[in-house]
């Protein structure tokens, strides 16, 4: 776990870059996190996934599976992988400022 400064605020992130405390995250931080992970620009479709991911985590305490993401986020699985090529569930969670998803699906 390391404390880094993002947009002037100290934030705690784990070794892989996931936020430890989702409350430290602000929407303005999404773009720089995305860029760190090879996504040059966040589109409305990216945001749809990021917001869904974050809301699901904050209401249920766990990140949704790729299955739920594909069914309920409004963005189908094929497009999820096109938007987040290195793994949609993990990357969207990282950009959304929530801890790393622990599910196997």
């Amino acid at each position, binding site marked *: 776990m390391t404390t880094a400064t993002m947009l002037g605020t100290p934030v705690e992130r784990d070794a892989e870059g996931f936020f430890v405390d989702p409350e430290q995250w602000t929407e303005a931080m999404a773009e720089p996190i995305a860029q760190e992970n090879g996504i040059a620009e966040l589109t409305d479709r990216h945001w749809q996934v990021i917001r869904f991911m974050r809301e699901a985590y904050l209401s249920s305490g766990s990140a949704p599976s*790729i*299955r739920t993401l594909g069914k309920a986020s409004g963005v189908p699985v*094929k497009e999820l992988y096109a938007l987040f*090529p290195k793994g949609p569930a993990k990357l969207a969670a990282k950009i959304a400022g929530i801890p790393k998803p622990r599910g196997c699906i």
Partner: protein
Amino acid sequence: MSDTMQLNEPAAAKPQTIEKVSIIVSRGSLEGIYPALIMANGARMEGIDANLFFTFFGLDAINRAKHEHIKVATVGNPGLHLATWAGGVPGVSAMVTHRLAGEMEKLDIPPIPEFIELIADSGAGLYACKASVDMFHLSRDDFVPQLQDIITVGEFYDLAAGGQIIFT
């Protein structure tokens, strides 16, 4: 002494990451198919390239007429802790399969047809073994539309080149 110490030192190189997996599915029971599907989906979720190669009874997983009806093997499966004779009683396999399906749904693990679709949509390649397809007198039309090709074992090795091969 100092030589031995050197040998015990950890390698300086960064641990290698897995970039590609090719998973062989050779069995047609529910417990024979799911681990491979979970591993293939899990690979794609980590950004790892994945291929699935279905051979022998594993072909049932992508057989349109059969993949909704995959059952747990209740005979010859000591893990179930059932008396051997009980595993063969009509309906037992269906009942155990039904119970397990309910548990998997709770974990958000999809039924096999939906799982195959999810894995294909995630960009993994689905391939059928030519020798098995010929042996069972099957053709392209018997399989799900997501099947990319029916290939020989040599073509499978070409596809798998540079990655890890997992046999299930």
